[in-house]
Protein backbone atom coordinates (compact mmCIF):
# COMPACT_ATOMS: atom_id res chain seq x y z
CA UNK A 1 0.00 0.00 0.00
CA UNK A 2 2.74 2.39 0.93
CA UNK A 3 4.45 1.91 -2.37
CA UNK A 4 1.55 3.05 -4.49
CA UNK A 5 0.73 6.04 -2.36
CA UNK A 6 2.75 9.09 -3.01
CA UNK A 7 4.23 10.17 0.24
CA UNK A 8 4.69 13.90 0.45
CA UNK A 9 7.74 13.63 2.63
CA UNK A 10 9.18 11.24 0.09
CA UNK A 11 8.57 13.70 -2.70
CA UNK A 12 10.38 16.42 -0.88
CA UNK A 13 13.39 14.34 -0.01
CA UNK A 14 13.92 12.10 -3.01
CA UNK A 15 12.76 14.42 -5.75
CA UNK A 16 10.68 13.35 -8.73
CA UNK A 17 9.28 9.86 -8.42
CA UNK A 18 7.48 9.07 -11.62
CA UNK A 19 8.27 9.31 -15.26
CA UNK A 20 10.83 12.09 -15.17
CA UNK A 21 13.02 11.76 -18.22
CA UNK A 22 16.68 12.42 -17.79
CA UNK A 23 18.26 14.99 -15.57
CA UNK A 24 17.68 18.66 -16.10
CA UNK A 25 14.81 18.13 -18.52
CA UNK A 26 11.97 18.83 -16.16
CA UNK A 27 13.40 21.04 -13.49
CA UNK A 28 16.37 22.77 -15.02
CA UNK A 29 18.41 24.73 -12.55
CA UNK A 30 18.06 28.47 -13.06
CA UNK A 31 21.73 28.84 -14.04
CA UNK A 32 21.30 26.54 -17.04
CA UNK A 33 18.71 28.95 -18.39
CA UNK A 34 20.49 32.13 -17.57
CA UNK A 35 21.43 33.70 -19.94
CA UNK A 36 19.40 32.41 -22.87
CA UNK A 37 20.46 28.92 -23.93
CA UNK A 38 23.01 28.97 -26.72
CA UNK A 39 23.25 25.35 -27.78
CA UNK A 40 20.80 24.22 -30.43
CA UNK A 41 20.31 20.80 -28.85
CA UNK A 42 19.11 22.29 -25.61
CA UNK A 43 15.46 21.46 -26.18
CA UNK A 44 13.03 21.22 -23.35
CA UNK A 45 9.27 21.47 -23.04
CA UNK A 46 8.07 24.49 -21.14
CA UNK A 47 4.67 24.74 -19.52
CA UNK A 48 2.53 27.79 -18.70
CA UNK A 49 4.14 29.67 -15.85
CA UNK A 50 7.61 28.24 -16.41
CA UNK A 51 10.43 30.73 -16.62
CA UNK A 52 11.92 30.67 -20.12
CA UNK A 53 14.43 33.49 -20.07
CA UNK A 54 15.51 35.83 -17.34
CA UNK A 55 15.47 38.77 -19.72
CA UNK A 56 12.24 40.32 -20.96
CA UNK A 57 11.54 38.92 -24.44
CA UNK A 58 8.26 39.64 -26.12
CA UNK A 59 7.52 36.67 -28.34
CA UNK A 60 4.39 34.66 -29.09
CA UNK A 61 3.51 32.16 -26.39
CA UNK A 62 5.27 34.10 -23.65
CA UNK A 63 4.53 36.87 -21.21
CA UNK A 64 6.87 39.19 -19.41
CA UNK A 65 6.57 39.62 -15.68
CA UNK A 66 9.09 41.80 -13.93
CA UNK A 67 12.43 41.25 -15.67
CA UNK A 68 11.84 37.67 -16.77
CA UNK A 69 9.96 35.91 -19.56
CA UNK A 70 7.52 33.13 -18.75
CA UNK A 71 5.76 30.69 -21.04
CA UNK A 72 2.01 31.08 -21.42
CA UNK A 73 1.37 28.12 -23.71
CA UNK A 74 2.89 24.68 -24.01
CA UNK A 75 6.02 25.07 -26.13
CA UNK A 76 9.50 23.77 -26.72
CA UNK A 77 12.74 25.68 -26.58
CA UNK A 78 14.88 25.28 -29.66
CA UNK A 79 18.16 27.08 -29.21
CA UNK A 80 17.21 30.62 -28.40
CA UNK A 81 13.84 30.26 -30.08
CA UNK A 82 10.55 29.04 -28.71
CA UNK A 83 8.49 26.64 -30.82
CA UNK A 84 4.82 26.48 -29.93
CA UNK A 85 3.41 23.00 -29.39
CA UNK A 86 -0.08 24.32 -28.83
CA UNK A 87 -1.86 27.54 -29.57
CA UNK A 88 -4.52 29.41 -31.41
CA UNK A 89 -4.42 31.50 -34.50
CA UNK A 90 -3.67 35.14 -33.93
CA UNK A 91 -4.86 37.02 -37.03
CA UNK A 92 -2.33 39.48 -38.43
CA UNK A 93 -2.71 41.88 -41.34
CA UNK A 94 -1.11 40.35 -44.42
CA UNK A 95 -1.95 36.75 -43.55
CA UNK A 96 -3.67 34.72 -46.24
CA UNK A 97 -6.69 32.85 -44.91
CA UNK A 98 -9.00 30.34 -46.53
CA UNK A 99 -12.68 30.11 -45.75
CA UNK A 100 -16.11 29.84 -47.25
CA UNK A 101 -18.77 32.46 -47.75
CA UNK A 102 -21.18 31.96 -44.87
CA UNK A 103 -23.46 34.89 -45.49
CA UNK A 104 -24.11 37.28 -48.34
CA UNK A 105 -24.93 40.78 -47.27
CA UNK A 106 -25.65 43.99 -49.11
CA UNK A 107 -22.21 45.40 -48.48
CA UNK A 108 -20.16 42.24 -48.68
CA UNK A 109 -19.66 38.71 -47.49
CA UNK A 110 -19.24 37.06 -44.13
CA UNK A 111 -16.50 34.48 -44.45
CA UNK A 112 -16.26 31.48 -42.16
CA UNK A 113 -12.57 31.04 -41.38
CA UNK A 114 -13.03 28.39 -38.65
CA UNK A 115 -11.72 30.70 -35.96
CA UNK A 116 -13.56 32.56 -33.23
CA UNK A 117 -13.14 35.75 -35.25
CA UNK A 118 -15.69 37.34 -37.51
CA UNK A 119 -14.27 37.78 -41.02
CA UNK A 120 -15.80 40.12 -43.55
CA UNK A 121 -15.02 40.73 -47.20
CA UNK A 122 -16.42 44.02 -48.39
CA UNK A 123 -17.81 44.10 -51.89
CA UNK A 124 -16.88 47.74 -52.25
CA UNK A 125 -13.82 47.39 -54.46
CA UNK A 126 -14.71 44.01 -55.82
CA UNK A 127 -15.14 43.17 -59.46
CA UNK A 128 -16.67 39.78 -58.74
CA UNK A 129 -19.50 38.40 -56.72
CA UNK A 130 -19.59 35.23 -54.69
CA UNK A 131 -22.40 33.11 -53.43
CA UNK A 132 -23.05 31.12 -50.31
CA UNK A 133 -20.67 28.25 -49.70
CA UNK A 134 -18.00 29.27 -52.18
CA UNK A 135 -14.44 28.85 -50.97
CA UNK A 136 -12.16 31.85 -51.15
CA UNK A 137 -8.61 32.66 -50.21
CA UNK A 138 -8.10 36.23 -49.11
CA UNK A 139 -5.60 38.42 -47.41
CA UNK A 140 -6.25 40.02 -44.04
CA UNK A 141 -6.49 43.77 -44.52
CA UNK A 142 -7.16 44.83 -40.97
CA UNK A 143 -7.81 43.34 -37.56
CA UNK A 144 -9.95 45.43 -35.25
CA UNK A 145 -9.51 45.83 -31.52
CA UNK A 146 -12.11 43.16 -30.85
CA UNK A 147 -10.51 40.84 -33.41
CA UNK A 148 -12.93 41.36 -36.25
CA UNK A 149 -11.10 40.58 -39.46
CA UNK A 150 -11.45 42.59 -42.68
CA UNK A 151 -10.38 40.76 -45.82
CA UNK A 152 -9.10 41.98 -49.18
CA UNK A 153 -8.04 40.52 -52.53
CA UNK A 154 -10.30 37.47 -52.44
CA UNK A 155 -9.88 34.73 -54.96
CA UNK A 156 -12.16 31.82 -55.47
CA UNK A 157 -10.83 28.29 -55.12
CA UNK A 158 -12.80 25.83 -57.20
CA UNK A 159 -13.15 22.07 -57.29
CA UNK A 160 -10.97 21.21 -54.37
CA UNK A 161 -11.15 19.94 -50.85
CA UNK A 162 -10.55 21.65 -47.54
CA UNK A 163 -8.78 20.17 -44.57
CA UNK A 164 -8.62 21.78 -41.15
CA UNK A 165 -5.30 21.64 -39.37
CA UNK A 166 -4.19 23.18 -36.12
CA UNK A 167 -2.98 26.68 -37.04
CA UNK A 168 0.24 26.32 -35.02
CA UNK A 169 1.22 23.42 -37.28
CA UNK A 170 0.95 25.51 -40.45
CA UNK A 171 4.67 26.44 -40.39
CA UNK A 172 5.51 22.73 -40.51
CA UNK A 173 3.19 22.15 -43.47
CA UNK A 174 4.83 25.00 -45.36
CA UNK A 175 8.31 24.08 -44.24
CA UNK A 176 11.44 26.14 -44.15
CA UNK A 177 11.64 28.14 -47.40
CA UNK A 178 8.53 26.28 -48.60
CA UNK A 179 10.43 22.98 -48.78
CA UNK A 180 7.62 20.86 -47.36
CA UNK A 181 4.80 22.35 -49.40
CA UNK A 182 6.91 22.21 -52.58
CA UNK A 183 7.61 18.52 -51.97
CA UNK A 184 3.92 17.86 -51.44
CA UNK A 185 3.02 19.64 -54.66
CA UNK A 186 5.80 18.09 -56.75
CA UNK A 187 5.28 14.53 -55.58
CA UNK A 188 1.49 14.45 -55.56
CA UNK A 189 0.89 16.82 -58.47
CA UNK A 190 -1.76 18.55 -56.43
CA UNK A 191 -2.52 22.22 -56.29
CA UNK A 192 -2.27 23.21 -52.63
CA UNK A 193 -3.02 26.40 -50.76
CA UNK A 194 -2.37 26.79 -47.05
CA UNK A 195 -4.18 29.45 -45.06
CA UNK A 196 -2.63 30.86 -41.93
CA UNK A 197 -5.90 29.99 -40.18
CA UNK A 198 -5.09 26.31 -40.55
CA UNK A 199 -7.17 25.53 -43.62
CA UNK A 200 -5.43 23.51 -46.32
CA UNK A 201 -7.14 23.57 -49.69
CA UNK A 202 -6.05 21.17 -52.38
CA UNK A 203 -7.21 19.76 -55.67
CA UNK A 204 -5.87 17.08 -57.94
CA UNK A 205 -6.11 13.39 -58.58
CA UNK A 206 -3.97 12.34 -55.65
CA UNK A 207 -6.04 13.93 -52.90
CA UNK A 208 -6.06 10.87 -50.66
CA UNK A 209 -2.27 10.89 -50.67
CA UNK A 210 -2.24 14.58 -49.81
CA UNK A 211 -4.52 13.89 -46.84
CA UNK A 212 -2.27 11.07 -45.69
CA UNK A 213 0.83 13.24 -45.92
CA UNK A 214 -0.80 16.17 -44.13
CA UNK A 215 -2.04 13.92 -41.36
CA UNK A 216 1.48 12.58 -41.05
CA UNK A 217 2.80 16.13 -40.67
CA UNK A 218 0.12 16.87 -38.10
CA UNK A 219 0.96 13.86 -35.99
CA UNK A 220 4.70 14.39 -36.09
CA UNK A 221 4.70 18.18 -36.10
CA UNK A 222 6.90 18.39 -33.01
CA UNK A 223 9.66 16.13 -34.38
CA UNK A 224 12.76 17.00 -36.38
CA UNK A 225 13.72 15.73 -39.85
CA UNK A 226 10.09 15.71 -40.87
CA UNK A 227 10.52 16.86 -44.47
CA UNK A 228 12.87 13.98 -45.25
CA UNK A 229 10.44 11.47 -43.80
CA UNK A 230 7.46 12.93 -45.64
CA UNK A 231 9.42 12.93 -48.91
CA UNK A 232 10.45 9.33 -48.30
CA UNK A 233 6.83 8.41 -47.60
CA UNK A 234 5.57 10.15 -50.73
CA UNK A 235 8.31 8.60 -52.85
CA UNK A 236 7.34 5.15 -51.59
CA UNK A 237 3.69 5.81 -52.36
CA UNK A 238 4.17 7.35 -55.79
CA UNK A 239 7.25 5.47 -56.97
CA UNK A 240 9.06 8.69 -57.86
CA UNK A 241 12.79 8.36 -57.39
CA UNK A 242 15.56 10.89 -56.94
CA UNK A 243 13.70 13.79 -55.52
CA UNK A 244 15.27 16.48 -53.38
CA UNK A 245 13.05 19.05 -51.72
CA UNK A 246 12.91 22.27 -53.68
CA UNK A 247 13.46 25.40 -51.61
CA UNK A 248 12.40 28.89 -52.56
CA UNK A 249 14.87 31.71 -52.23
CA UNK A 250 12.38 34.16 -50.86
CA UNK A 251 10.12 32.89 -48.12
CA UNK A 252 6.53 33.21 -49.19
CA UNK A 253 4.51 36.03 -47.71
CA UNK A 254 2.79 34.74 -44.59
CA UNK A 255 1.90 31.12 -44.92
CA UNK A 256 0.46 31.59 -48.32
CA UNK A 257 2.13 29.80 -51.17
CA UNK A 258 1.11 29.00 -54.68
CA UNK A 259 1.07 25.98 -56.83
CA UNK A 260 4.05 25.44 -59.17
CA UNK A 261 1.81 25.22 -62.20
CA UNK A 262 -0.03 28.40 -61.38
CA UNK A 263 0.47 31.24 -63.80
CA UNK A 264 2.56 34.13 -62.57
CA UNK A 265 4.26 32.30 -59.75
CA UNK A 266 7.61 32.01 -61.44
CA UNK A 267 9.59 34.67 -59.68
CA UNK A 268 9.99 35.18 -56.00
CA UNK A 269 8.46 38.63 -55.92
CA UNK A 270 5.25 37.34 -57.47
CA UNK A 271 4.58 35.15 -54.48
CA UNK A 272 3.11 37.93 -52.48
CA UNK A 273 -0.56 38.08 -53.08
CA UNK A 274 -0.77 41.33 -54.98
CA UNK A 275 -2.95 43.28 -57.31
CA UNK A 276 -1.70 41.32 -60.27
CA UNK A 277 -3.62 38.29 -59.15
CA UNK A 278 -6.91 40.06 -59.35
CA UNK A 279 -6.72 40.24 -63.11
CA UNK A 280 -5.93 36.59 -63.48
CA UNK A 281 -9.27 35.59 -62.13
CA UNK A 282 -11.13 36.20 -65.31
CA UNK A 283 -8.75 34.15 -67.37
CA UNK A 284 -9.06 31.30 -64.96
CA UNK A 285 -12.81 31.61 -65.04
CA UNK A 286 -13.03 31.12 -61.31
CA UNK A 287 -14.85 34.28 -60.41
CA UNK A 288 -17.95 35.77 -61.92
CA UNK A 289 -17.78 39.41 -62.95
CA UNK A 290 -19.83 41.52 -60.65
CA UNK A 291 -23.00 42.98 -62.04
CA UNK A 292 -22.67 46.69 -61.58
CA UNK A 293 -26.09 47.48 -63.01
CA UNK A 294 -27.57 48.48 -59.70
CA UNK A 295 -30.24 45.82 -59.91
CA UNK A 296 -30.77 44.66 -56.36
CA UNK A 297 -31.80 41.18 -57.48
CA UNK A 298 -28.35 40.50 -58.72
CA UNK A 299 -27.18 40.40 -55.11
CA UNK A 300 -29.41 37.48 -54.38
CA UNK A 301 -27.12 34.54 -53.86
CA UNK A 302 -27.62 31.45 -55.86
CA UNK A 303 -26.59 28.82 -53.35
CA UNK A 304 -28.83 26.62 -51.29
CA UNK A 305 -29.80 27.66 -47.83
CA UNK A 306 -30.43 31.31 -48.61
CA UNK A 307 -32.81 32.99 -46.22
CA UNK A 308 -34.11 36.49 -46.32
Amino acid at each position, binding site marked *: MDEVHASLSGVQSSGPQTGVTGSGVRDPKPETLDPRPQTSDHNRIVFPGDKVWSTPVRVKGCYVSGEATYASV*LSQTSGDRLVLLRGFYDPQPGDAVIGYVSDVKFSGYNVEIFQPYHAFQSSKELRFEYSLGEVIIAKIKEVSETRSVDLEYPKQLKDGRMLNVEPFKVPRIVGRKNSMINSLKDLTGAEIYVGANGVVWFSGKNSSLVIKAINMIREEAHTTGLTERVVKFLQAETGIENYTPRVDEEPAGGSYSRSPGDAGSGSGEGRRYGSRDRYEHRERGGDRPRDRGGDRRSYKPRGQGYRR
Partner: protein
Amino acid sequence: MMVSSMNQVSETQNPKLLKVDFMAKKKDGLKLIVDGKRLDGRAADQLRPVRIEAHVLNDANGSAYVEWGKNRVLAGVYGPQECIPKHDASPYGALIKCRYTMASFCSLEEHGRSGPNRRSIEISKVMTDAFKSVIFTEYYPKTQIAVFVEVLQSDGGTRCAAINAASVALVDAGIPMRDMVTAVAFAKVDDQIVIDAAKEEDNFGQADVPVAIGANSKEILLLQMDGILSKEEMQQGMEYAYSAAEYLHRLQKDALERVFTTTAQEKKETFLRM
Protein backbone atom coordinates in the same frame (compact mmCIF):
# COMPACT_ATOMS: atom_id res chain seq x y z
CA MET B 1 -18.41 -10.83 17.48
CA MET B 2 -19.14 -13.56 15.00
CA VAL B 3 -20.60 -12.43 11.73
CA SER B 4 -22.39 -15.01 9.68
CA SER B 5 -21.24 -15.55 6.15
CA MET B 6 -24.76 -14.78 4.96
CA ASN B 7 -24.52 -11.28 6.37
CA GLN B 8 -21.14 -10.73 4.81
CA VAL B 9 -22.46 -11.62 1.40
CA SER B 10 -25.43 -9.33 1.67
CA GLU B 11 -23.24 -6.51 2.93
CA THR B 12 -20.92 -6.62 0.00
CA GLN B 13 -23.70 -7.19 -2.47
CA ASN B 14 -25.84 -4.29 -1.39
CA PRO B 15 -23.88 -1.10 -1.20
CA LYS B 16 -26.64 0.69 0.66
CA LEU B 17 -26.37 -1.79 3.51
CA LEU B 18 -22.66 -1.12 3.65
CA LYS B 19 -23.22 2.58 3.98
CA VAL B 20 -25.83 2.28 6.71
CA ASP B 21 -23.53 -0.09 8.53
CA PHE B 22 -20.69 2.41 8.32
CA MET B 23 -22.80 5.19 9.72
CA ALA B 24 -23.86 3.00 12.62
CA LYS B 25 -20.27 2.11 13.34
CA LYS B 26 -19.30 5.76 13.29
CA LYS B 27 -22.00 6.47 15.85
CA ASP B 28 -20.56 3.75 18.05
CA GLY B 29 -17.24 5.57 17.99
CA LEU B 30 -15.38 4.09 15.03
CA LYS B 31 -11.94 5.60 14.65
CA LEU B 32 -11.00 6.98 11.24
CA ILE B 33 -7.31 6.90 12.18
CA VAL B 34 -5.91 3.88 13.98
CA ASP B 35 -2.23 3.70 14.93
CA GLY B 36 -1.44 6.64 12.69
CA LYS B 37 -2.98 4.87 9.72
CA ARG B 38 -6.10 5.95 7.95
CA LEU B 39 -8.97 3.75 6.78
CA ASP B 40 -7.21 2.95 3.50
CA GLY B 41 -3.84 2.50 5.19
CA ARG B 42 -2.40 5.89 4.33
CA ALA B 43 -0.32 8.10 6.60
CA ALA B 44 -1.55 11.62 7.35
CA ASP B 45 0.68 13.14 4.67
CA GLN B 46 -0.03 10.62 1.92
CA LEU B 47 -2.05 11.20 -1.22
CA ARG B 48 -4.05 8.52 -2.92
CA PRO B 49 -2.45 7.22 -6.10
CA VAL B 50 -2.90 9.77 -8.87
CA ARG B 51 -2.74 9.14 -12.58
CA ILE B 52 -3.17 11.84 -15.21
CA GLU B 53 -3.51 11.42 -18.96
CA ALA B 54 -3.61 14.38 -21.32
CA HIS B 55 -5.15 14.62 -24.77
CA VAL B 56 -7.61 11.74 -24.47
CA LEU B 57 -10.48 13.12 -26.58
CA ASN B 58 -10.20 13.51 -30.33
CA ASP B 59 -12.53 16.38 -31.04
CA ALA B 60 -12.01 18.59 -28.02
CA ASN B 61 -9.37 21.32 -28.30
CA GLY B 62 -7.86 19.95 -25.13
CA SER B 63 -8.70 17.17 -22.74
CA ALA B 64 -7.48 15.26 -19.73
CA TYR B 65 -8.40 12.26 -17.65
CA VAL B 66 -7.58 11.97 -13.97
CA GLU B 67 -7.71 8.92 -11.75
CA TRP B 68 -7.31 9.92 -8.13
CA GLY B 69 -7.86 7.01 -5.81
CA LYS B 70 -11.32 5.85 -6.79
CA ASN B 71 -12.15 9.18 -8.40
CA ARG B 72 -12.38 9.22 -12.16
CA VAL B 73 -12.70 12.57 -13.85
CA LEU B 74 -12.77 13.51 -17.52
CA ALA B 75 -12.25 17.09 -18.67
CA GLY B 76 -12.70 18.61 -22.12
CA VAL B 77 -11.96 22.16 -23.25
CA TYR B 78 -13.57 23.82 -26.26
CA GLY B 79 -12.59 27.25 -27.36
CA PRO B 80 -11.97 30.06 -27.68
CA GLN B 81 -15.14 29.81 -29.72
CA GLU B 82 -18.05 32.02 -30.59
CA CYS B 83 -19.79 33.07 -27.41
CA ILE B 84 -23.30 31.71 -27.01
CA PRO B 85 -25.62 33.37 -26.08
CA LYS B 86 -24.18 36.31 -27.98
CA HIS B 87 -25.38 38.94 -25.52
CA ASP B 88 -23.07 37.39 -22.91
CA ALA B 89 -20.00 38.12 -25.02
CA SER B 90 -17.63 40.70 -23.64
CA PRO B 91 -15.50 42.99 -25.82
CA TYR B 92 -12.90 42.95 -23.04
CA GLY B 93 -12.10 39.26 -23.07
CA ALA B 94 -13.16 35.68 -23.33
CA LEU B 95 -15.80 34.29 -21.05
CA ILE B 96 -14.81 31.22 -19.11
CA LYS B 97 -17.59 28.73 -18.67
CA CYS B 98 -16.78 25.79 -16.45
CA ARG B 99 -19.36 23.06 -16.15
CA TYR B 100 -18.81 20.47 -13.47
CA THR B 101 -21.26 17.58 -13.50
CA MET B 102 -21.45 14.28 -11.72
CA ALA B 103 -22.58 11.31 -13.74
CA SER B 104 -25.75 9.79 -12.35
CA PHE B 105 -23.84 6.54 -11.84
CA CYS B 106 -20.78 8.07 -10.20
CA SER B 107 -21.25 6.94 -6.59
CA LEU B 108 -23.24 4.87 -4.14
CA GLU B 109 -25.44 7.81 -3.36
CA GLU B 110 -28.39 8.70 -5.52
CA HIS B 111 -27.43 11.38 -8.01
CA GLY B 112 -30.60 11.16 -10.07
CA ARG B 113 -30.37 12.87 -13.39
CA SER B 114 -26.89 14.11 -14.06
CA GLY B 115 -27.85 17.69 -14.79
CA PRO B 116 -26.63 20.61 -12.73
CA ASN B 117 -27.77 20.87 -9.14
CA ARG B 118 -27.04 23.30 -6.32
CA ARG B 119 -23.71 21.67 -5.47
CA SER B 120 -22.42 21.30 -9.01
CA ILE B 121 -23.39 24.88 -9.87
CA GLU B 122 -21.31 26.04 -6.91
CA ILE B 123 -18.33 23.95 -7.96
CA SER B 124 -18.60 25.18 -11.54
CA LYS B 125 -18.60 28.72 -10.19
CA VAL B 126 -15.53 28.35 -7.98
CA MET B 127 -13.67 26.55 -10.78
CA THR B 128 -14.49 29.38 -13.17
CA ASP B 129 -13.16 31.90 -10.65
CA ALA B 130 -9.98 29.92 -10.10
CA PHE B 131 -9.21 29.75 -13.82
CA LYS B 132 -10.28 33.34 -14.49
CA SER B 133 -7.27 34.57 -12.56
CA VAL B 134 -4.74 32.57 -14.59
CA ILE B 135 -6.10 32.63 -18.15
CA PHE B 136 -5.22 35.55 -20.44
CA THR B 137 -8.84 36.15 -21.31
CA GLU B 138 -8.08 39.53 -22.88
CA TYR B 139 -6.44 37.82 -25.87
CA TYR B 140 -9.77 36.54 -27.12
CA PRO B 141 -12.48 39.19 -26.95
CA LYS B 142 -16.08 38.28 -27.72
CA THR B 143 -15.43 34.56 -27.31
CA GLN B 144 -15.99 31.89 -24.73
CA ILE B 145 -13.80 29.13 -23.38
CA ALA B 146 -15.91 26.16 -22.36
CA VAL B 147 -14.50 23.74 -19.82
CA PHE B 148 -16.52 20.59 -19.28
CA VAL B 149 -15.70 18.29 -16.42
CA GLU B 150 -17.56 15.04 -15.92
CA VAL B 151 -17.13 13.02 -12.75
CA LEU B 152 -17.44 9.41 -13.81
CA GLN B 153 -16.76 7.95 -10.39
CA SER B 154 -16.54 9.80 -7.11
CA ASP B 155 -14.92 9.06 -3.80
CA GLY B 156 -14.35 12.40 -2.14
CA GLY B 157 -12.21 15.24 -3.44
CA THR B 158 -13.74 15.37 -6.91
CA ARG B 159 -13.59 19.14 -7.15
CA CYS B 160 -9.82 19.01 -6.70
CA ALA B 161 -9.51 16.21 -9.23
CA ALA B 162 -11.73 18.24 -11.55
CA ILE B 163 -9.57 21.36 -11.24
CA ASN B 164 -6.39 19.35 -11.89
CA ALA B 165 -7.97 17.73 -14.94
CA ALA B 166 -9.31 21.03 -16.25
CA SER B 167 -5.90 22.66 -15.82
CA VAL B 168 -4.19 19.97 -17.91
CA ALA B 169 -6.97 20.16 -20.50
CA LEU B 170 -6.61 23.94 -20.77
CA VAL B 171 -2.87 23.66 -21.36
CA ASP B 172 -3.49 20.88 -23.86
CA ALA B 173 -5.94 23.16 -25.66
CA GLY B 174 -3.29 25.86 -25.95
CA ILE B 175 -5.15 28.48 -23.96
CA PRO B 176 -2.58 31.07 -22.84
CA MET B 177 -2.27 30.99 -19.06
CA ARG B 178 -0.08 32.73 -16.49
CA ASP B 179 0.29 29.56 -14.53
CA MET B 180 -1.00 26.04 -14.17
CA VAL B 181 -3.46 25.26 -11.42
CA THR B 182 -3.19 22.39 -8.98
CA ALA B 183 -5.75 21.54 -6.34
CA VAL B 184 -5.83 19.31 -3.28
CA ALA B 185 -7.95 19.12 -0.15
CA PHE B 186 -6.85 18.68 3.43
CA ALA B 187 -9.10 17.69 6.29
CA LYS B 188 -9.31 17.37 10.03
CA VAL B 189 -10.10 13.81 10.93
CA ASP B 190 -10.11 12.50 14.50
CA ASP B 191 -8.44 15.75 15.64
CA GLN B 192 -5.63 15.27 13.17
CA ILE B 193 -4.81 17.14 9.96
CA VAL B 194 -4.62 14.83 6.94
CA ILE B 195 -4.08 15.54 3.26
CA ASP B 196 -6.44 14.40 0.51
CA ALA B 197 -9.52 13.27 2.41
CA ALA B 198 -11.36 10.27 1.01
CA LYS B 199 -15.13 10.10 1.07
CA GLU B 200 -15.55 8.68 4.59
CA GLU B 201 -13.03 11.11 6.03
CA ASP B 202 -14.82 13.95 4.31
CA ASN B 203 -18.27 12.86 5.49
CA PHE B 204 -17.38 11.94 9.05
CA GLY B 205 -14.37 14.19 9.67
CA GLN B 206 -14.39 17.53 11.45
CA ALA B 207 -13.29 19.84 8.63
CA ASP B 208 -12.56 19.74 4.92
CA VAL B 209 -10.55 22.41 3.06
CA PRO B 210 -10.13 22.22 -0.72
CA VAL B 211 -7.32 24.47 -1.96
CA ALA B 212 -6.30 25.41 -5.50
CA ILE B 213 -2.79 26.75 -5.87
CA GLY B 214 -0.99 28.42 -8.75
CA ALA B 215 1.76 25.94 -9.49
CA ASN B 216 4.60 28.42 -9.92
CA SER B 217 3.29 31.58 -8.33
CA LYS B 218 2.00 29.70 -5.26
CA GLU B 219 -1.02 31.97 -5.30
CA ILE B 220 -4.15 30.64 -3.65
CA LEU B 221 -6.84 30.53 -6.32
CA LEU B 222 -9.49 28.67 -4.36
CA LEU B 223 -9.97 28.15 -0.66
CA GLN B 224 -13.13 26.73 0.79
CA MET B 225 -13.64 25.50 4.32
CA ASP B 226 -16.32 23.25 5.69
CA GLY B 227 -15.83 22.93 9.46
CA ILE B 228 -13.73 24.64 12.09
CA LEU B 229 -9.93 24.72 12.31
CA SER B 230 -7.48 26.46 14.60
CA LYS B 231 -4.78 28.71 13.16
CA GLU B 232 -2.11 26.07 13.75
CA GLU B 233 -4.19 23.37 12.08
CA MET B 234 -4.75 25.62 9.09
CA GLN B 235 -1.01 26.28 8.78
CA GLN B 236 -0.22 22.59 9.02
CA GLY B 237 -2.83 21.79 6.37
CA MET B 238 -1.55 24.49 4.02
CA GLU B 239 1.97 23.12 4.39
CA TYR B 240 0.67 19.72 3.29
CA ALA B 241 -1.29 21.32 0.46
CA TYR B 242 1.71 23.21 -0.88
CA SER B 243 3.93 20.15 -1.05
CA ALA B 244 1.10 18.09 -2.54
CA ALA B 245 0.57 20.79 -5.17
CA GLU B 246 4.24 20.55 -6.11
CA TYR B 247 3.90 16.81 -6.62
CA LEU B 248 0.66 17.14 -8.58
CA HIS B 249 2.17 19.82 -10.80
CA ARG B 250 4.94 17.38 -11.68
CA LEU B 251 2.34 14.74 -12.60
CA GLN B 252 0.46 17.27 -14.72
CA LYS B 253 3.60 18.27 -16.62
CA ASP B 254 4.49 14.61 -17.04
CA ALA B 255 1.11 13.84 -18.58
CA LEU B 256 1.45 16.72 -21.03
CA GLU B 257 4.98 15.76 -21.99
CA ARG B 258 3.88 12.18 -22.61
CA VAL B 259 1.58 13.43 -25.38
CA PHE B 260 4.71 14.22 -27.38
CA THR B 261 7.00 11.41 -26.30
CA THR B 262 4.69 8.41 -26.69
CA THR B 263 4.25 6.62 -29.97
CA ALA B 264 0.91 6.05 -31.65
CA GLN B 265 0.93 2.44 -30.44
CA GLU B 266 1.55 3.44 -26.84
CA LYS B 267 -1.25 5.96 -27.10
CA LYS B 268 -3.60 3.25 -28.28
CA GLU B 269 -2.68 1.10 -25.30
CA THR B 270 -3.34 4.00 -22.97
CA PHE B 271 -6.83 4.30 -24.33
CA LEU B 272 -7.39 0.60 -23.88
CA ARG B 273 -6.25 0.77 -20.29
CA MET B 274 -8.82 3.40 -19.59
